[in-house]
């Protein structure tokens, strides 16, 4: 009798501790968000939200300080768009190649390589971008500095690629083999089958892959800080230095006075980033769920 009770107690403890860890992970995210809101919102006692979001100058330590993050938002957008333009076509094509065309042994090698790419620390990628890509771009376009939005885009494309390739490849591999056989049996060529049937059936998963890849690019800090030149001006093209939201927080948090307006402004940038990544993940989730149905 006693052993039954002991077992029941054990079950109860295990069940509740798992429940507790689940609750904690949600609570921590909520607390982080609340902390962000509390620290960030103090800025808006002296500053309007419109001025903050659409102000054209970011001079946080001038007198009076000016906290307009439009240059930073545009910097992030430009770098992200550039990175997406490079990594999405290559990533999707690579995923199709790995899943559909590559022979088994090459497929395994490529998948291992992609995973290795994901494991490279961002500071290493940033370092490589800074000392090899930067000078190359500087010479190629004959511009005063090689640390530009373009450099950031190319560097970040490398960081988005593993995410895009591995998730898109999963989606493509999940397409039932029978679709391929049916299409081929009707006289479709390999490429027609891949493009018209497999890519179409895997489309929700591939969109999710793209969104998650972009989410990684927007949130990336270290590499982008090292290669974009960090000039908080409104960008007019890819060949000039820009500064992103993330790099601003990382670069300036150490020198801001805790509780001061500069400090609050950096937290407000954090809120903006949080909302952007939340939206991107939400959209990706939507597509992933649709593909499972």
């Amino acid at each position: 009798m006693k052993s039954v009770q002991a077992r029941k107690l054990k079950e109860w403890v295990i069940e509740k501790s798992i429940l507790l860890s689940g609750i904690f992970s949600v609570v921590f995210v909520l607390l982080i968000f609340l902390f962000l809101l509390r620290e960030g919102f103090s800025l808006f006692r002296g500053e309007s939200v419109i001025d903050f979001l659409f102000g054209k100058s970011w001079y946080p330590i001038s007198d009076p300080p000016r906290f307009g993050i439009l240059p930073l938002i545009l910097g992030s957008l430009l770098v992200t768009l550039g990175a997406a333009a490079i990594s999405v076509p290559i990533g999707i094509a690579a995923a199709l190649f790995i899943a559909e065309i590559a022979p088994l042994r090459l497929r395994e090698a490529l998948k291992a390589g992609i995973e290795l790419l994901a494991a490279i620390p961002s500071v290493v990628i940033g370092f490589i971008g800074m000392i090899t890509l930067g000078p190359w771009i500087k010479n190629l376009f004959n511009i005063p500095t090689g640390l530009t939005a373009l450099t950031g885009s190319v560097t970040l494309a490398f960081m988005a690629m593993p995410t895009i390739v591995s998730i898109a490849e999963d989606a493509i591999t999940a397409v039932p083999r029978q679709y391929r056989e049916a299409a081929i049996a009707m006289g479709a060529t390999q490429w027609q089958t891949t493009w018209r049937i497999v890519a179409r059936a895997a489309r929700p998963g591939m969109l999710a892959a793209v969104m998650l890849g972009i989410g990684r690019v927007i949130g990336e800090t270290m590499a982008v800080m090292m290669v974009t030149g960090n000039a908080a001006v409104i960008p007019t093209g890819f060949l000039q230095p820009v500064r992103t939201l993330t790099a601003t927080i990382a670069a300036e948090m150490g020198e801001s006075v805790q509780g001061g307006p500069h400090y609050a402004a950096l937290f407000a940038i954090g809120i903006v980033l949080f909302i952007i990544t939340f939206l991107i993940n939400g959209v990706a989730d939507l597509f992933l769920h649709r593909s499972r149905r």
Partner: protein
Amino acid sequence: MVNPQHKFSVRNFNVHYDHFSALRNLNLEINANEIFTVIGPANSGKTTFLNSLNRLIDLVPASRCSGEILLDGIDIRAGMEVETLRRKVGIVFALPLPLPISIFENVVFGLRMQGVRDLRRLNQAVERSLRESYLWDEVKDRLSTPAMNLSGGQQQRLCTARILAGQPDVLLFDEPTSGLDPISTARIEETLLILKKKYTVVLVTNNVAQAARVGERTAFFLMGEMIEVSETGKMFTTPADTRTGDYITGKFG
């Protein structure tokens, strides 16, 4: 040498999967406009045979074929493009497999792959092939809905229709009714009897009674060898080989 009545001529045909011999020294003829049925227990080589006729067997990386198969006197390996062969020789699988697109697009998929864009031609092909497969009346008002929403029997007839849309010569059926209820099965069998007036039909079935109902000539396969081939009626009354008789009467398999 080539008999115009023979749609397919199979000569000394062998298939190996790695070291496993799936078909050995197969020699047979399939006549135009007949229903040729293939019976035999599991792993007897029936599906391998069917997949050889339109070279779907090429998709199995470990497979090796030798010997020759002639379609209208032309070697299907040396004499024609594999896509052309597969348009002429359509296949309906055991499990209904509509593509994840609309009913209309399923039917015209093969035509679109051939580059047909003319909407009137596509519309005509859809109506003609859906009528031939006896599905038109059930789906004519919802051609743009996903094919996945159809019932199993309807999906199987849709799979037949999408083959017919390409105007093939030969229709291969790989146990087309194994996943269907008796009423859907009866409808498919009726369809087969009408289709054979226009097309040559090769039906692989694990249902001996079905072969007796619709077949004109029947081949009995066992462990990768063809034991005998003859008129269906003759095989079912006076089989030449005792193993055929044993299988038909249900002593094994």
